[in-house]
């Protein structure tokens, strides 16, 4: 029988996280630091607003690019919060989560063989979505020595004549790294020099704990080459609603809209109305959640260092990314033994790219009680390797 699956899909390896999901699911008494979503439920005012629109019969398609009310609110919010200005009629599209935005952005800009520079460690979907769009992923590895920030030197090495775009996520999943205006300046010179397009995944933008998030798109000359991607999942604890958005130059957004209208039609209307409420009245709830993440961030980063796992203070997102090299284990060995021996689930760093090896990702989006127990168990586990 001939092979039923396409070569492209055969070449994409299964997710490295699956194994830990299976392990954790079969064991009892597991504390999970492996969850990549907020531990809060969507604030009630947002849920209530969505329920109310359903009661009033808002159950239809919306325009392909999304509810005008939502696009208006997003435009206002981006301008006020991050000093980036978009025409909500032509330069914005509402998507099914930021994930869809990444997918259709890549499909809209890539021809077969085009190289996409991926700043790693990073979210697990960038590499496969580049491949699915016919592109060639090129890893650009950051590490602890630069606090997981991109530097011009490491980026320059990987740029070729085939480089078409660069994709990054700051604040970063899994490292918690952020980029300031000063960090960006040398990078954007390089981006302009090589005429690269930029996919800036800013889904964790609101979860910046020490400094206000800085969007690379706000720098001079960047708006016309940047696709800003974000959504409501992390800031407003709305992962299951699947509402994201992309903003960028009109030609690219309109090209993305073509793909979106034929493959997705529109994002679910219930989620879009919920997102409208989030932007209109969700500020206080969001600020409270951010304050709580900050407290837990402070606690876990100190505790990891205390138990002997070197850990930078994550500046954003809700992950700590401690080094486990002191134990002599690989990140896969560490994660597997930790869950089996100490019943704590974490995600090994290598699943986020080569540069993630030697680290584990620990989500602190869980209760303080769980964090205390998990760190105590991890402390005992690490002790045997000293």
């Amino acid at each position, binding site marked *: 029988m001939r092979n039923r699956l396409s070569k492209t899909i055969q070449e994409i390896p299964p*997710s490295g*996280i699956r194994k*830990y*999901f299976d392990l*954790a*699911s079969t064991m009892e008494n*597991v504390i*999970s630091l*492996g*969850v*990549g*979503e907020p*531990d809060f*439920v969507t604030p009630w005012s947002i849920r209530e607003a969505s329920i109310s629109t359903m009661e009033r019969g808002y159950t239809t398609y919306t325009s392909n690019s999304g509810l005008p009310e939502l696009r208006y609110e997003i435009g206002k919010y981006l301008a006020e919060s991050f000093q980036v200005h978009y025409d909500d009629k032509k330069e914005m599209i509402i998507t099914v989560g930021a994930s869809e935005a990444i997918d259709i952005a890549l499909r809209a800009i890539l021809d077969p063989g085009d190289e996409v520079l991926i700043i790693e460690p990073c*979210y*697990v*979907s960038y590499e496969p979505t580049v491949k699915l769009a016919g592109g060639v992923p090129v890893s650009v590895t950051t590490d602890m020595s630069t606090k997981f920030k991109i530097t011009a030197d490491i980026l320059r090495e990987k740029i070729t004549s085939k480089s078409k775009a660069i994709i990054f996520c700051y604040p970063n*999943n899994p490292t918690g790294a952020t980029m300031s205006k000063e960090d960006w300046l040398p990078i954007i010179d390089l981006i302009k020099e090589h005429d690269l397009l930029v996919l800036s995944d800013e889904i964790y933008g609101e979860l910046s704990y020490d400094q206000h998030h800085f969007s690379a798109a706000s720098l001079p000359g960047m708006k016309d080459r940047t696709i800003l991607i974000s959504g409501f999942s992390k800031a407003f604890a709305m992962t299951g609603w699947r509402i994201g958005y992309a903003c960028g130059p009109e030609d690219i957004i309109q090209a993305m809209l073509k793909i979106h209208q034929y493959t997705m039609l529109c994002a679910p209307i219930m989620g879009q109305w919920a997102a409208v409420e989030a932007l209109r009245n969700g500020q206080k709830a969001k600020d409270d959640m951010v*304050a709580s993440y900050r*407290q*837990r961030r*402070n*606690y876990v980063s*100190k*505790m990891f260092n205390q138990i002997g796992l070197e850990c930078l203070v994550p500046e954003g997102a809700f992950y700590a990314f401690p080094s486990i090299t002191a134990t002599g284990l690989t990140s896969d060995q560490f994660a597997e033994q930790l869950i089996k021996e100490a019943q704590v*689930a974490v*995600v090994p760093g290598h*699943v986020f790219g080569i540069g993630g090896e030697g680290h584990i990702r620990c989500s602190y989006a869980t209760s*303080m009680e769980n964090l*205390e127990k998990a760190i105590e168990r991890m402390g005992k586990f690490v002790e045997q390797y000293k």
Partner: protein
Amino acid sequence: MKKEKVIEMLTLLEQNGRHSYDKLAMMLDLPEEEVKQTIAELEKDKVILRYPTLIDWDKIQGNDLVTAMIDVKVTPQRDVGFDEIAERIYRFPEVKSVYLMSGAYDLSVTIEGKTIKEVAFFVSQKLSTLDTVVSTATHFILKTYKHDGVVFNPRDDDRRMVVTP
């Protein structure tokens, strides 16, 4: 300690009075000594009054209590306004809380007793007979759903998958 940090610390303690000094210090990113000293000052200044525990007494059999909220209309007095009558009321140990209210009545008084009879006795014999009390309206609490921001029988379990990217 900066004012914002004091507020943040008080909010944490309000949610959980059992946070240890070192844990608070870590969460607030402050030296432990500073946290300890600030808490001592706040206790001395009666900003922090007590570290109570919130208990769902309905789950403990044999310790049944009835609680009533009483709307009290009073005649305010020259010079002291409502303060003196409020004090005469709050000195009774049965009285759990007293608030001065805007609106249709003046004082909102919460009474706790072992039986309805006990509460009724207090209202008719002690409260209504005070000189300045004009009228009372007693409302018994039937069930507590939420108190001090805490839902008593929450149904919001962690429904997340155990490991996600």
